[in-house]
């Protein structure tokens, strides 16, 4: 619930009065766990992303999207499918996790 409130404040998600169902997990962030572990917390060759500063995460995602990250593999191909707003949502969601 704490995350929910933080996130709602950060990205202005509709909570209860909207016409669409909103969880504290944006669709664009839900898929990240496939590789980064539940809530992006698994540290390994694929790094954990939970709790990192939102600005850092967002700028890294934009660098991937612009092919500016050396030795990147799948991330540029995946992030090119996200909108600018989704990049900010993903960054806000993972940075709010502690």
């Amino acid at each position: 619930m704490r995350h929910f409130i933080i996130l709602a404040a950060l990205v202005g998600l509709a909570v209860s009065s909207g016409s669409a169902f909103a969880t504290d997990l944006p669709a664009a962030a839900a898929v990240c766990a496939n590789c980064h572990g539940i809530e992006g917390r698994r540290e390994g060759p694929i790094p954990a992303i939970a709790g990192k500063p939102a600005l850092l995460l967002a700028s890294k995602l934009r660098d991937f999207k612009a092919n500016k990250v050396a030795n990147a593999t799948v991330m540029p191909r995946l992030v090119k499918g996200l909108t600018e707003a989704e990049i900010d949502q993903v960054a806000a969601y993972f940075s709010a996790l502690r």
Partner: protein
Amino acid sequence: MSRYDRRSFLTLAGAAGLSSLVGGCASGPEGRGPRVLVVGGGFGGATAAHYLRRFDPNLRVTLIERQSSVLTCPFSNLVVAGLRDLEQNRFGFDGLRAQGIEVIQADVTAIDPAARQVWLGESSRLDYDRLVLAPGIDIAWDKLPGYDSAAAEQVPHAWKAGPQTLLLRRQLEALDDGGLVVLTIPANPYRCPPGPYERASLIAHYLKTHKPRSKLLLLDGKDSFSKQGLFLEGWQALYPGLIEWVPAGKDGKVARIDAATRTVETEFGTRHHAAVLNVIPPQTAGTLAIKTGLTDASGWVPVMPRTFQSVKAPEIYVIGDATIATPQPKSGFTANAQAKVAAAALVASLRGLEPPDPLWMNTCYSLLAPDWAITVAGVYRVIDGKLAEVPGSGGVSPKAAPATFRALEATYASSWYANITQDVWG
């Protein structure tokens, strides 16, 4: 909230506290809200159970799976090649139980969409408000002459992980150096589009290492395949002269199998005799989806793109390999992504709200050797009412990349496997 949804909500409120297991006995799942059943504990089903509870901790979620644990198809080709123990690919359900999900080991014998009941065996029934069905694939035993379940005991398919995987492994171990291995590959669609070519690569790795005079012949029902350029490039670099790929247009299409003599007869009558024969046969949606009437003439399940509700029974959400979700591939990664979208849509539906805008991703890692992997990635949305790849996104690993890049993707493949299996089974 639609009238229908409101009715089910009220009915459920009235029934609160009653066990909905008819003719059986169970402690039941945690939670007081609507009852959601998930049938199938693989990548799709287990992810759905996990994320339904995350999205709404009040839901009573019950997962029904035939086996007490599952063996993954991803990474099973490493077992075939002797590079991994089968048991490393086994996952149980204690992680889901710890989240308050009830897990029942049972065979679902029938689904009654009109009564919204699932039958376990012949005498037990479970009621549901919503059902998630993740039945995976079954082998289409009637599609390839000579290849039935008895034949598969001699000539493995190994396209469902378990005893079949070990049977193929043992046959490769028993192969004489110089013996011919034949792998037959079906036309689309089938589970894991690049899977047969990863298997070919890792069998080649085993042969090169242990049976260097042996050859591998691939008889394909198609003229092109996933990541083809990258596979061919890798085979040339790693296994020159070892693998011969015969596309459909050059008589690669298999017409008949003689399991007793391990002989393959092609469409144009060429006969290939194998020392080890691995038949990846034509497939359909899991039998339960067919019996429930959810499939169309293709043998697969049509779904509504935004939510993955069955077109034929909207209270049933169908996810994973059983569905028609082109251009999304039939992969464990995709099933996991579909499960999250379906879980969010299902929770919205129970609340009478519109589903959130969906987004799916997929990444298929294929190992050509323990330190050489390639990927194909995709991002998908609903565009003009249909599932579609997001223009400008996705694609395959670069061609002619240095060995360090292939090794990096192999490292990520292992990391991905460790992490997705945690996301699925906890």
